[in-house]
């Protein structure tokens, strides 16, 4: 979707948290993106490359994306299960559930700096 604005928003978040000197040492950004977040990892990588082109400060930075599967919680069983093929049923009792507990994340999990 709006991958370029997401990339900008990641960098803005980091710029709020770290000084320009620190960001010069930035090496890698680890993202966690739920597969229900409607964000394509590949498009995100492309958007990041495009932003790097126009903003020289991040030329040395690698973007690492971990995809998170969808998980739901079943109140009856008290268990969470993975959603496969977008069928939202409890893996144990097969009852439908729409209690999402994972899958819509758009998280900056870690950032790595040069030592």
């Amino acid at each position, binding site marked *: 979707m*709006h991958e370029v604005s997401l990339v900008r928003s990641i960098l803005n978040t980091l710029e709020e948290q770290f000084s320009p000197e620190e960001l010069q040492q930035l090496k890698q950004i680890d993202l966690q993106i739920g597969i229900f977040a409607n964000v394509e990892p590949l498009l995100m990588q492309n958007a990041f490359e495009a932003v790097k082109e126009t903003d020289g400060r991040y030329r040395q930075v690698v973007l690492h994306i971990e995809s998170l599967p969808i998980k739901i919680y079943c109140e009856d069983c008290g268990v969470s299960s993975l959603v496969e093929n977008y069928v939202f049923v409890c893996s144990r009792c097969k009852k439908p559930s729409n209690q999402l507990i994972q899958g819509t994340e*758009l998280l900056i999990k870690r950032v790595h*700096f040069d030592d």
Partner: protein
Amino acid sequence: MVDKSTKAARGTVLCDNANMNLLKANDFVAESIRKKMAEMGILLLNITSSAGSGKTTLLQETGKRLKEEFKIKILVGDLETERDAERLREVGVEALQIVTGGICHLEGQMIVQAMDAIDLDGVDILIIENVGNLVCPASFDLGEDYRVTLLASTEGDDKPKKYPRMFFTSDLVLISKSDLLPHLPFSVEAAIQDVRDVNPEIEVFPVSSLTGEGIDKWCNWLREKAIAKRKSTTASV
């Protein structure tokens, strides 16, 4: 979010729960819209679909039938043109176009600005026609009471599995252009099954703005929700 230490950042820094600002900010705005609509007793709907699935035509029909009974206003998101708002005004419904200038979805902030530009006094139902696209609008809460998604018979019945987030977040799915069903390989049963895989309890029914099939049912649904919304507000005052 990040542990702000006094030392310069080195090595690996964990950023727990650093949700990207873009969506966090939108959720905040959406909540403020929801609060305002609750106070005013206005039913707010967000209508989504792929491009050209019949949103504006359905809203024209809806306006024609319900405008004497309810005060309805419509906000229409569109990439570039004013056309949809004009089509709605032609049938006597007040409509404001939100031209997104190429942005593929509406965000809460755009709705807040549009609401400032119209008079909400006495309005019963405010309808947002979202940009025609099943991907991006799914992630942006606009503070709506209900999200209604149109799936046109001309689109193919595999859409729910291709765009699950939209169907997961919807409260009602209308299979639009149902008059064309006899000519198309679209299976209503298969589409309903796929929608319910993603969203088990959701109501799904066919509508046609051309023949009127399902339009009364849709208007009744809307009437019931609008009356309930008004009651919930007068009850809490």
